[in-house]
């Protein structure tokens, strides 16, 4: 469990995207996403789709992995689609009692769903090809200039790192408490499901206590190792832009421009 969280959605392949600097990825994705928010015409949708498909192929990640990412929001997608189909006024092509399906509705439904799917696929590219801590590192570096304006970027980044690092610890802590109880003859996992839900409640308060205790020790640990306010730390793991980062950056900008022009041109 600990490892799954630390790895996040990360999926190891030797693709181009895995080698990219996290900063390039973050900025590019933001650009592409913004340009997608303006999608309007059929051609622009087509271009966007081709771009996303291209990215998926290049990532070398099997398609079912992306499918898995879409699963949790399948319900929203269906709902959005049906909603548009049913409630958009226009040319009725099929009806049953008060329900009317219209051409415009189908059109709208497909469009909205399509856009969300594209956005999600893009977003999962970032998490599938970058480990959460690398992502945090990239973000810290991107925001580094703000540090000069007295924005506590380092501390903010430490916050995120602690958060990522502690999600598994907390889940482990729950495991630990269960294990400690098991070691003294109380096995929660042996209970039936309905009883188990209630059995979790008494664990919550001890959990809260130990976590607050953990926080105290962690504060000591960070202070004791002279973190201070994090300003001016050196950085052992360095990020370096490579050729490929510039190339990808260039392509992204061209893409965005193309989409923009398509939209402006109304094609």
């Amino acid at each position: 469990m600990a490892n799954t969280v630390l790895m996040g959605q990360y999926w190891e392949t030797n693709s181009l995207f895995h080698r990219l600097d996290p900063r390039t990825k973050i900025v590019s994705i933001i650009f592409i996403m913004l340009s997608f928010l303006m999608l309007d015409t059929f051609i622009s949708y087509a271009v966007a789709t081709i771009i996303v498909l291209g990215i998926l192929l290049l990532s070398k990640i099997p398609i079912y992995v992306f499918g898995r990412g879409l699963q949790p929001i399948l319900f929203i997608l269906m709902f959005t689609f049906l909603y548009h189909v049913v409630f958009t006024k226009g040319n009725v092509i099929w009806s049953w009692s008060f329900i009317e399906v219209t051409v415009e509705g189908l059109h709208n439904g497909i469009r909205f769903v399509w856009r969300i799917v594209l956005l999600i696929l893009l977003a999962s590219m970032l998490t599938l090809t970058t480990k959460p801590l690398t992502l945090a590192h990239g973000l810290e570096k991107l925001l580094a200039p703000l540090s000069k304006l007295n924005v506590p970027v380092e501390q903010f980044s430490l916050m995120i790192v602690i958060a990522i690092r502690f999600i598994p610890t907390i889940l482990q802590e729950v495991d630990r408490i269960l294990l400690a109880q098991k070691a003294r003859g109380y096995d929660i996992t042996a209970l039936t499901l309905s009883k188990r839900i209630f059995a979790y409640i008494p664990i919550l308060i001890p959990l809260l206590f130990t976590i607050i205790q953990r926080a105290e020790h962690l504060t000591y640990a960070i202070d004791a190792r002279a973190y201070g306010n994090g300003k001016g730390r050196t950085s052992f793991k360095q990020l370096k832009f490579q050729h490929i980062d510039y190339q990808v950056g260039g392509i992204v900008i061209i893409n965005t421009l193309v989409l923009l022009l398509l939209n402006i041109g109304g094609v």
Partner: protein
Amino acid sequence: MLTFDHVHFYYKKGQSVIENMSFTIETGESVAIVGANGCGKSTIAKLMDGLLLPKEGRVTFKNIDTSRPTDLDKIHEQIGFVFQNPEDQFITTTVMDEVVFGLENIRVPREEILNRLNYAIQAVQMEDYLDSMPHQLSGGQKQRVAIAAIVAMRPEIIIFDEATSMLDPQGREQVRSIMNELHRQGMTIIHITHHMQEVLSAERILLIHEGRLEFDGNPLTFFETATVADYQLELPFAVRLYQMFHHSTPLTADWKEMVRLQWSIN
């Protein structure tokens, strides 16, 4: 120069944990702190490092008062502290990051970080575990990593709070020799331990009893004269042997040496 000047401390009002404690540890000394469970050793260590502040009196390091928040960073840079429970000390997700974290904080340049990382990790023999999660190591391995993370920072003082309690005898010996080496290079070593043989090889011993400093001096003198059981301590093996020989040879920390000497006299 680390000074306790009439220090009082409590966690809860009315239940004092440290009472009127005064002593000075000079640069380059090697000091063992001993005492019963709950007598306040870890609390003293936290006071030394400025993690806790005295309720009365002053703790100063090179004339910097720990209660001045602005200077606390300097104290943390100069005083390294290996926690009693290594799990409380871990901040990051890999053994490597754990060692590097402190080095980045004290602004060690990149190339130098690599050197120190290698040195520290090799010293505790954890080369094979650089990418492991600290929380998923065995009990003794955790202690080794905790030690490496502090040793790499090369502070002027290192406080080891029972940092070797779960090491095998060989590991204990290794850490002992790391300590000796650092001490030889001029580092001040403060070692909190329940292992009496280790106490014997320190230069000075601070005995804490119910929050008060009960004895401050040479360990050999201490074990020769004190009734150790009053302080929940036992005699080191060397001293037990010494008593068996009815004190016929001078007491030394190295008991094998003592036996040989005895043998040659007879």
